């Protein structure tokens, strides 16, 4: 396992992706409002 993994205390890198309905979702939009559980999936297949 790499020692260069993201760790608690670090700022979460911001990003924007489109959701399944094509709407842009920017991580920073949750700041000040919601705690975010950010899950990176392995893939469905």
């Amino acid at each position, binding site marked *: 396992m790499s020692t260069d993994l993201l760790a*608690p205390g670090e700022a979460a890198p911001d990003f924007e992706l489109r959701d*399944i309905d094509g709407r842009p979702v920017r991580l920073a939009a*949750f700041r000040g409002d919601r*705690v975010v*559980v*950010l*899950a990176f999936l392995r893939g469905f297949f």
Partner: protein
Amino acid sequence: MASIRDDYQEFTALGAEVVAVGPDDLQAFRRYWSENALPFIGLPDPGHRVARLYKQQVRILKWGRLPLVCVLDRAGRIRYAHHGQSMADIPPNSTLLNIISEINRS
């Protein structure tokens, strides 16, 4: 993801949102979200751009990407990061809900 789905209301009751990023394309995401009635945000990342940004681990001998789950506080800071050691190595909802509760208390 079905596990989080089953407790999704507990997450939202604590002021959390669930955002899932995956390597599959839009069509596969739509199908999976529909078949599993997932109520939270799904973000296809077929180019792995965000997965690389977050240093999601890839293990060829373990058949691909390993799960990564982070909890971010309202300042956008990582308060918890679980880099899975296997495909099934995903933290239980109780762990995530406890961390969110701690964030709410701090």
